């Protein structure tokens, strides 16, 4: 027996709200957006995530240099400061520039010491001509978003690494690999998770039990040794691209369990929903029942699960590459870049080598906040 709903106003409220606004014919996506947009932290995270993926998409254009370009004259060159105004004999005027380096070798430690050289003014600008590159491997281009007007000048906004490569360029290119490994890896996990989780939840019985035990087994194996084992099994002579895909497969073979659980749980609870039974009693075929009546209730939950799974992928890739077992140079990812920050010298002499680590933290946090927001908004009909 159920009583008429009596949280005063609540039903009336929704009615009012709905009739007043445009929500009358609002689809679930409009309602989800309506709810999501009120989650402030998630909105900020969304902007950050979009920015990071834009950087990944336009890496060649945004990076001042090719990630492989090295110059032994500038090993561990410190970050340069951007000066907006230039003061010389003609007076002060607006002319963005950085200063070149005065370098000398310390006779005791053979360390190269850098000082900004006020005489070497390196004018910088937007959309400058620089090193030629192939945009997305298709179009020839040589314009860079930001760089020195003369491409021969040194330009190290966040410093250089031990071979005198520009860390900013490398980090930007690393963004592409690191962020795409999250996205593509999760896509693979999603396919496995959706199929196995769906079968598990919809069929139930023995199939369900077997799949659940497999998931529990996979989740009980400590991840780092498991990755290490799988990565070690990879032939050393594989080309970098093949390694990239192998790593993807390894990560998603482990990562699908979480998504499978979410999907199974939703299927289990959906199966008993009145509206699903009602659709069955309409004579709807099983395929249509799943695709038309159950799946739409799952989309938003799946998106939330994906958003929360991407950071795990990124962290896994970073950890593997950091240990030297994941991606190998010349592929540049945040994890690969952090390999350089493994030794004491890096910490004392060139702390800017941690910048890729900061990127990992920012990306993972943003994705987690975004995932939280999506998860909260995922079911706009929940009470």
């Amino acid at each position, binding site marked *: *027996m*159920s*009583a*008429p*709903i*009596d*949280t*005063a*106003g*609540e*039903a*009336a*409220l*929704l*009615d*009012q*709200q*709905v*009739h*007043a606004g445009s*929500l*009358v*014919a*609002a*689809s*679930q996506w409009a*309602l989800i957006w309506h709810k999501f947009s009120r989650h402030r932290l998630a909105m900020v995270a969304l902007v950050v995530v979009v920015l990071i993926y834009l950087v990944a998409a336009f890496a060649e254009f945004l990076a001042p240099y090719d990630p492989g370009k090295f110059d032994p004259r500038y090993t561990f060159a410190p970050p340069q400061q951007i000066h907006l105004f230039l003061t010389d004999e003609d007076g002060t005027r607006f002319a963005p520039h950085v200063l070149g380096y005065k370098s000398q070798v310390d006779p005791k430690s053979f360390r190269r010491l850098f000082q900004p050289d006020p005489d070497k003014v390196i004018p910088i600008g937007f959309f400058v001509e620089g090193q030629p590159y192939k945009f997305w491997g298709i179009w020839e281009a040589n314009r860079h978003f930001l760089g020195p007007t003369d491409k021969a000048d040194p330009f190290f906004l966040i410093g250089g690494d031990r071979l005198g490569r520009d860390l900013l360029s490398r980090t930007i290119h690393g963004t592409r690999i690191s962020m795409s490994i999250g996205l593509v890896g999760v896509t693979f996990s999603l396919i496995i998770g959706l199929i196995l989780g769906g079968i598990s939840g919809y069929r139930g019985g023995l199939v369900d039990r077997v799949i659940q035990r497999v998931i529990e087994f996979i989740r009980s194996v400590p991840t780092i040794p498991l990755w290490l084992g799988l990565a070690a099994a990879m032939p050393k002579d594989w080309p970098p691209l093949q390694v990239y895909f192998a790593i993807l497969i390894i990560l998603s073979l482990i990562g699908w369990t979480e998504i499978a659980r979410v999907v199974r749980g939703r299927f289990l609870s959906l199966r008993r*929903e*009145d*509206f*699903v*039974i*009602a*659709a*069955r*009693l*309409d*004579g*709807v*075929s099983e395929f*249509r029942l799943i695709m038309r*009546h159950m799946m*739409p*209730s799952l989309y938003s939950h799946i998106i939330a699960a994906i958003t929360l799974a991407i950071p795990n992928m990124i962290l896994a890739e970073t950890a593997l590459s950091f240990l030297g077992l994941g991606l190998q140079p010349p592929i540049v990812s945040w994890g690969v870049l952090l390999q350089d920050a493994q030794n004491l010298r890096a910490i004392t002499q060139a702390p800017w080598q941690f910048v890729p680590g900061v990127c990992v933290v920012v990306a993972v946090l943003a994705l987690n906040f975004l995932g939280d927001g999506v998860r909260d908004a995922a079911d706009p*009909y929940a009470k």
Partner: protein
Amino acid sequence: MSDETILKVRNLSVDFPIQKSVVHAVKDVSFDLKRGETLCVVGESGSGKSVTARAILQLVAKPGAITGGQILLDTSSGEVDIVKLGSRGLAIREVRGRRIAMIFQEPMTSLSPVHTIGHQIVETILLHEKVSKEEARKRAAALLGRVRIPEPEKALDRYSFEFSGGMRQRAMIAMALSCNPEILIADEPTTALDVTTQAEILSLIRELQRDRGMAVLFITHDMGVVAQIADRVMVMFRGQKVEEASVFDLFERPQQPYTRALLGSVLKLETPAPRPPRPAAEEPIAKIENLELHFPLNAGFMGRPTNYLKAIDGVSLTINQGETVGVVGESGSGKTTLGRTLLRVYDPTGGQVMYWPSNGEPVDIATLNKAGMKSLYGEVRMVFQDPHSSLNPRMTIYQTISEPLRTNTDMTERQMMDRVSELLSRVGLPPDIGDRYPHAFSGGQRQRISIARAVAVRPRLIIADEPTSALDVSLRHQVLDLMRDLQNEYGLSYLFISHDISVIRYFCDRVAVMKNGKIVEVGDVVQICENPQHAYTQNLIGAVPRPDPRLRADAPQ
């Protein structure tokens, strides 16, 4: 009953700010509560009756807030304004529990499942009074005995989940009484209970109130309960007080149009609706024979269960063409399961369900294969209890109503659109709302949509599972009348499942009374309601609160 007023509510207003607007849940409500009387606050969903009750104890849920008025409680040291006490602090805690106690609709959620009943009552006593633990325990046992819980000493050491709903509500009442409050606020205390249990709880509250001279503020939506228990009645509508009168005056001479309408819709359900003449020759459309649905309770030895839950235990019932057969029973009687088993949502473990399709030979639904069932889904339809959960929130109204057309007919999209608009106007909704989603509609409107979906394919038999119990009383007979009209129009037969005798009496031709998975009595609806034969049916019918205060024992002649 004395004339001394213990609680004065003056111009009380409670607002709920929602995004950009404000909802006035309670607007300018004033009333008095006298010592030893029962004041019933009655109203439909959203009338603000519960919020009013909660405001008295400063229990309004955030973001709601009391925005004006006074709540004056009479104490030995003059009047205290509860509004000024705030929702926290010692002063309001002194009032709560000790001066004014409250019981809620859901006894399960108001009792902690991790502490024993005794522990919780003793706790309450110790909180408010300086007595020893043993003394408190003795008093707790006495209280449980007072609310007629058998073996109170043992009951003290049991947990709330070991109790039935009625027992839990008794325990809640015992807890509320533990500090001898002067006012008891009861917020729909019997709504979640079966009607026989409800009758027991109501008489218990009434008796305790007389013994202790408590004032009772009783919140309910059920006019039958009001007629049984109230001294005075306050009617609320959309946050405002509509009318206040003594119970006899209110039922005999309602002053306000809203009260008249409310009483009208209640009284309408007291008499059977005018019904079409039944076909002289009774041709069965469905015949249930010895239907059984047993769930194994244990795996048993060698996979053979030894113990079963007999959800349906040998039910036989015939539904004739054009007839409405009611199934009535309390919760757990198996009536909903019966309805669902007929459409093979659950597969029966025994018995037969013969069904005579529009063309061809009778088939046994209980053993029919998938293809056979598929052809039946267009003829036998179901209407669900809760219109909020039976409509897919992610599909538009058009998509939902056209779904059975899509699978059972070969109509074109164009034809379906016409048919859906036709159906929508038939059930009394605007025909152009097909592109809206269910959340845009109220409960009554949603139930109309569910009915449109059920009749879309011109069915012959509809299994209606409590289609009105989630609706306010003023909407119930409207939905029933609609179902009746559709029956005349399409020659439908109904299997109508309900726990509510008045709805059954209004709507059904014959009725079957179910208990523990069995049918205890079948008969003509008038005979069952007026002259029940089986002891259980007599008990059930007798427990239904009738909306007529003159039937009370203490009614003036």
